[in-house]
C-alpha cells in the first residue's frame, strides 16, 4: 500500500468473507429445506437433495465471490484532514468526509460477526442534508481497528478539560429494570405478531383450518367470550415473553459513559454488540419518555436530543438516541442531569399548568373520537341491522370513560417552565414526554392558533431547533403564558414583536 502524506490506504478484514459465506449458508439452508421437501414429492429424494445442494453451492459460492470482489475493491484511509473511502466494481464510489465534521463513530457487531471478532463501523457527520451522503460505512474490520478509528476520529483537544465530577460511568444497567419490559408497547405488538405468525405459517402448509379447529377443540367446554379472553391472555403472555427476550438482547451490558474530551458513549447488546458515540457539543437537551405502562410503574426512558441523529432513518436507528432504557424515575432524572452536566435535573423541575381551556379541548377530542364512530355505527344499525346498535352502545359504554380518563391525564401532563438554561415542556398521555431543551439551542419560534384556540385564548408554541425532531411543542398554553415563556427562554428575540394586550395594534388580529 502506498503511504502518502494523506495517510495509509487500508483494506477491510479478509475474514469478512467468512461471515458473508456463513450468511449465505444460512439463506441457502433456510430456502433449501422447503424446496427439497417440495421437490421430493415428484422425484426420488437423492435427486431433490442433489438439485438443492447444487443450487446452494452456487448461491454460497457466488455470493462469497461477489463479496470478495467488493472487499478487494474497497479501501479507506484516515488522513490528517479527511477520511476517504473508495469502493465499487463498475460504479466507482469515492466518498470523503472532512475530519472536523465527523460527529459519530458507531460500532455494531452481530453474533456472526462477533465470532471472528469483527465489527461494522459507521462514520457520520451528523449533517441533516442528503440521506446517506454524510455517512461512511466500513463492513467489516477487526474490533481493534474499529476501536482505533473511533478513538482517532473522535479525539479532540479536551475543550472543557477533565471534569472528574462528570466523567466516567454515568449509568450501568440494573438487571431488575427488566420488569419494565413486559409493560412496554412492544409486548402487545409482539403478541399480535406471534398470533399472526401462527396463522400465516399454518396457511403456508395449508393447515390453517386444522389449527383453528384444534384451538376450538381445546376450548370446547368454555363459552366463546371466554375463549377470546383466554386467547388474548395467551397472546399477551407470549408478547411479554418476547418483550423480555428483546429487552435482554437490546440492553444487556448497557453502559453509559462520558469519555474525556466530551463524548457520550452507549454500549449495549447481548448478541449484537452496539457502541454508539455521541459528541456532547451536538447535544441540545434530553427527552424523558414515559409510555403509559412504564409510567404507571414509575419509570422513564432517557433519549438524547442531538443534531444529526434523527435523520438516519434507514434501518432501525430510532433506538440510537436512547441513552438509558426504562429505569426508575429517580435514576432517569439523575442520568438526565449528569448527561447535561447539571446538578439539578431540569426534567424534574416543577412545571406551570396550562389553562382549563386546554382540558376542555382534550375532553372534546376524546369524546369526539369515541362518539363519531359510535354515531356512524348507530346510523348503520338503524338502517341495516339492530346488531350494530348493540355494538355502538357497547363501544360507547366501554370506551367513553377510558377516553375521558386519558383526556384528563393528558391535561395533567401538560406543563412548561424555564429551568436554568433549559426550556422544559411536557405533554402526552399514552406516551408522555418531557423535553428539556437548551435555550441556546432554540433557533426560532412558531406560534400556532386554530380558530377555536383563538376563541379560547390559548396557543401552541413551538420551539424549533436543529436537533432531534426539529421542533418541540408547548401545547395549548395560555396566550400570555406562552408568549411570556418564549420571551423568557430566548430573551430579546420575541420582544420587538410583542405589544400589551388591549392596545389597538394587538387587536388587529384578523379573525
Amino acid at each position, binding site marked *: 500500500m502506498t503511504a502518502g502524506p494523506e495517510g495509509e490506504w487500508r483494506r477491510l478484514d479478509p475474514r469478512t468473507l467468512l461471515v458473508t459465506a456463513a450468511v449465505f449458508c444460512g439463506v441457502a439452508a433456510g430456502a433449501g429445506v422447503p424446496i427439497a421437501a417440495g421437490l421430493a414429492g415428484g422425484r426420488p429424494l437423492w435427486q431433490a437433495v442433489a438439485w438443492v445442494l447444487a443450487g446452494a453451492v452456487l448461491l454460497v459460492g457466488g455470493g462469497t465471490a461477489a463479496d470478495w470482489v467488493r472487499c478487494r475493491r474497497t479501501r479507506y484511509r484516515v488522513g490528517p484532514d479527511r477520511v476517504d473511502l473508495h469502493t465499487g466494481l463498475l460504479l466507482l464510489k469515492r466518498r470523503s468526509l472532512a475530519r472536523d465534521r465527523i460527529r459519530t463513530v458507531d460500532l455494531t457487531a452481530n453474533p456472526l460477526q462477533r465470532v471472528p471478532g469483527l465489527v461494522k463501523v459507521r462514520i457520520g457527520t451528523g449533517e441533516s442534508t442528503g440521506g446517506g451522503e454524510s455517512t461512511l460505512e466500513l463492513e467489516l474490520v477487526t474490533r481493534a481497528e474499529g476501536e482505533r478509528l473511533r478513538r482517532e476520529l473522535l479525539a479532540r483537544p479536551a475543550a472543557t478539560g477533565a471534569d472528574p465530577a462528570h466523567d466516567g460511568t454515568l449509568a450501568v444497567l440494573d438487571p431488575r429494570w427488566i420488569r419494565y419490559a413486559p409493560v412496554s408497547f412492544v409486548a402487545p405488538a409482539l403478541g399480535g405478531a406471534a398470533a399472526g405468525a401462527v396463522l400465516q405459517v399454518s396457511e403456508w402448509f395449508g393447515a390453517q383450518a386444522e389449527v383453528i379447529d384444534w384451538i376450538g377443540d381445546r376450548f370446547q367446554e368454555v363459552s366463546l367470550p371466554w375463549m377470546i379472553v383466554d386467547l388474548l391472555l395467551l397472546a399477551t403472555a407470549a408478547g411479554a415473553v418476547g418483550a423480555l427476550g428483546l429487552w435482554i438482547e437490546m440492553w444487556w451490558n448497557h453502559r453509559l459513559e462520558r469519555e474525556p474530551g466530551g463524548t457520550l458513549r452507549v454500549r449495549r447488546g447481548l448478541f449484537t454488540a452496539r457502541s454508539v458515540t455521541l459528541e456532547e457539543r451536538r447535544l441540545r437537551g434530553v427527552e424523558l419518555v414515559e409510555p403509559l405502562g412504564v409510567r404507571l410503574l414509575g419509570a422513564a426512558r432517557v433519549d438524547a436530543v442531538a443534531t444529526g441523529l434523527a435523520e438516519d432513518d434507514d434501518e432501525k436507528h430510532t433506538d440510537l438516541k436512547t441513552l438509558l432504557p426504562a429505569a426508575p424515575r429517580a435514576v432517569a432524572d439523575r442520568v438526565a442531569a449528569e448527561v447535561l452536566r447539571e446538578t439539578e435535573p431540569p426534567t424534574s423541575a416543577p412545571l406551570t399548568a396550562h389553562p382549563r381551556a386546554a382540558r376542555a379541548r382534550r375532553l372534546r377530542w376524546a369524546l369526539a373520537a369515541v362518539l363519531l364512530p359510535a354515531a356512524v355505527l348507530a346510523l348503520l344499525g338503524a338502517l341495516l341491522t339492530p346488531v350494530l346498535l348493540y355494538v355502538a352502545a357497547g363501544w360507547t359504554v366501554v370506551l367513553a370513560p377510558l377516553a375521558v380518563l386519558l383526556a384528563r391525564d393528558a391535561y395533567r401532563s401538560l406543563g412548561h417552565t424555564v429551568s436554568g438554561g433549559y426550556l422544559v415542556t411536557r405533554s402526552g398521555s399514552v406516551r408522555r414526554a418531557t423535553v428539556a431543551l437548551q435555550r441556546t439551542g432554540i433557533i426560532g419560534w*412558531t406560534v400556532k392558533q386554530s380558530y377555536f384556540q383563538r376563541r379560547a385564548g390559548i396557543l401552541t408554541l413551538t420551539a424549533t431547533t436543529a436537533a432531534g425532531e426539529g421542533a418541540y411543542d408547548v401545547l395549548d398554553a395560555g396566550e400570555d403564558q406562552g408568549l411570556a415563556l418564549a420571551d423568557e427562554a430566548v430573551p430579546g428575540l*420575541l420582544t420587538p414583536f410583542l405589544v400589551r394586550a388591549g392596545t389597538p395594534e394587538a387587536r388587529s388580529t384578523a379573525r
Partner: protein
Amino acid sequence: MAGENAVRLRPPRNAVDRRAVGWWSAQCLLAAGLPAAVLAVLGLLIEPARTWLLGTAVVLVALGVACTAFFPAWWFRVHRWEVTDEAVYVRTGALWQEWRIAPMSRIQTVDTVRGPLEQLFGLATVTVTTASSKGALRVEGLDHELAADLAERLTALTRATPGDAT
C-alpha cells in the same frame, strides 16, 4: 384573562402584494376547475354516468367559486411579513394561523421561487430556512423585484451575523 402584563404578538409591519389576491384566486379556481373540466368531459363522453359526473363537476365548481370568494381576501388580511436587523417575522394562515420568527443568526439559506402562475402575476415566494427541519419560513405573494431585493438583503445580513446557525 388579560392580566397586568398580558402581551400579544403584534402583526408584522408589511402586507403582501395586492396582486396576491388574484394569484390565490387563480389557484383556487384552477384547483377546482381542472378536475371539474376532466369530469365534465368524461360526463359528456360516458352516457350512463352523465348525471353523476356532471353533478360532481358542478359541485366542485361551486366549491371553488365559494373558496375564491372567501379565502383569498382572508389570506390577504392575515399574511404579513417583517424583516428587522435581528429577525424575520412572518404571519400566515386563516383558520389555522401561524406566527413564525427566525433570528438572523440562525438563518441558513434564502431562496426565491417563482412558479408559472406567480410569474403571470409578477409575484415571487421567499423561503428562509434554518437548521431545523421544521423551521422554514415562507413569504408568499411578494412583488418579484421586492422579493429579489429582500433575498439579497437577507443574504447580506446573514453573512454579517456570526455563528454556525445550529
